[in-house]
């Protein structure tokens, strides 16, 4: 028996999946969720094997929800129309169902999952999927982080700078900082290159918050932010920073 969860904000969109699931007695529906927060809770509670996930949902979208789940289950996306995302996850998700989808199409997606399950670790597949999905333009407007049990959505313009810290990246905002289990390279790809510059091996700075850049020690520089925070700039980082600033 496999455990399944449906996450979609439209009741009728959930009900069609429920209906289609009736002919799959090997899949047991654990819960229906109407937004990402409920989804995260349900995933932690039930540890499902498979989730049907909508992308456009209240507060946090499907991708952002997945980012916050520590060991994401296998995912079949159900979405109406997403010009950016479809291309990105075509190769990585178990499947994606374009609404409205037929029973046959649905069965095929489930079968695909059942067939591939023993060979691929779902978590790894979902991980790669997220990497590529986060490259879509709609994804780099904000960063979603888990702060204890709370979920925090940080608009990128509020991010002052990013700092590498072991396996995490420290996201500094005006009043606090948040940790996210990602690499600097990930953010370098995901964030807007016209707004964020990798000014140092361990730092990325939001150029909109820079007040001035001072020379510092030999070859180095120091970016002074409007908030007063200081961000080190390496020799190669200085070249990149100048490029972003258009100097």
């Amino acid at each position: 028996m496999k455990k399944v969860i449906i996450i979609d904000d439209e009741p009728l969109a959930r009900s069609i999946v429920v209906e289609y699931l009736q002919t799959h007695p090997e899949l047991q529906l654990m819960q229906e969720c109407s937004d990402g927060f409920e989804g995260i809770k349900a995933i932690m509670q039930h540890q499902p094997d498979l989730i049907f996930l909508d992308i456009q949902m209240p507060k946090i979208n499907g991708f952002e929800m997945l980012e916050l789940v520590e060991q994401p289950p296998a995912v079949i996306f159900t979405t109406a129309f997403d010009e950016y995302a479809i291309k990105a996850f075509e190769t990585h998700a178990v499947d994606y169902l374009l609404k409205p989808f037929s029973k046959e199409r649905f069965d095929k997606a489930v079968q695909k999952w059942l067939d591939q399950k023993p060979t691929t670790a779902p978590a790894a597949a979902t991980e790669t999927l997220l990497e590529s999905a986060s490259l879509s333009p709609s994804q780099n407007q904000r960063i979603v982080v888990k702060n204890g049990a709370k979920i925090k959505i940080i608009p990128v313009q509020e991010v002052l700078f990013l700092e590498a810290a072991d396996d995490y990246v420290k996201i500094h905002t005006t009043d606090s900082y948040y940790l996210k289990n990602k690499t600097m390279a990930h953010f370098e790809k995901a964030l807007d290159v016209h707004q964020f510059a990798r000014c140092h091996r361990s730092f990325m700075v939001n150029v909109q918050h820079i007040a001035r850049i001072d020379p510092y020690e030999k070859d180095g520089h120091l970016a002074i932010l409007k908030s007063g925070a200081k961000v080190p700039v390496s020799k190669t980082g200085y070249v990149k920073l100048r490029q972003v600033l258009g100097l």
Partner: protein
Amino acid sequence: MQTWILYGLGFTILTDITDSVVSNLLLTAACILISNNLKYYLPQQRRYTYLLIMCLLTSGAWLLAIKYALPLVIVNESGYDAFLVKSLSVRFGVAFLVIDCMTMISVIWYGFDDQKTSAQRKTEAEKLTKDAELYKLRQQLQPHFLFNSLNSINALIGTRPQEARTMVHQLSDFLRGTLKREEQQWVTVEEELQYLQLYLDIEKVRFGNRLSTVFETDKSSLQIKMPAMILQPLVENSIKFGLYDTIGETIIRIATTISNNMLVITVQNPFDEETAQPRKGTGFGLHSISRRLYLLFARNDLLATDAQNNIFTTTVKIPQSYTEIAKISAVADKKDNFIL
């Protein structure tokens, strides 16, 4: 004139005429040459030195031509050769002036011509872009809504076929309205509200209890005309913003009124100040509306947004001519009196 001057200098009439005809023909040829040249190559502004050099060269060439051509045709006149050499500088001066004049006229003429065609091309291009843009803006409003509605219908067919049927009708009416509106650009507020209602009925099926709407429409504003496809996208944007930024029930308020000869439409939706990105979150919807308003009225100040106390307000103003308003409010007043 040249003949007369030469005659006065004591040459025979035949010599005078030959001299004049030959030199003037050559001068005409030079002028035609220069004018033709300018027809195909018009120098950029401020490149007058080029023109000057061209005129000098042409005049020089003409001078050389007559210097060698005239003695060949006029052979029997004594003292003519000496006179020719003496008069060269005067001839050059006159020719240079004539060619200069010709050049100037050509430059102005072709320049004007050029400007006319480019202006024509520009207006045509602008019209094309405008049409294309308006078309595109309308197109982009549909697909997401359409596919999600079809998905809802698909779900209803299995469980509640009667409701599915109703929704198919609503969706058809809505889409028909969209197509019809492409032809007639201005419609009354009342028509727009009816059309909006179709859209809202469909959205309410999709989102169930989460979505509710409140209307506050001034009676006098109902007969006012406004561009089609402004109100519905405005509300669509508000619904998306409201529904995707809050959890639980979303109330959308829609108000229309007249103020300062403008139709004023306000749409309000709840949002969460903590998580929303007021500027970015409004997304495509508002941008396209403000662009359309700009294309229609050439004004950038007709759409305004305001975010306060977790309520996001979008205000759109549609300029009206004074007489239109007066006429309509007069009619509305009469109606009211009647009822009283």
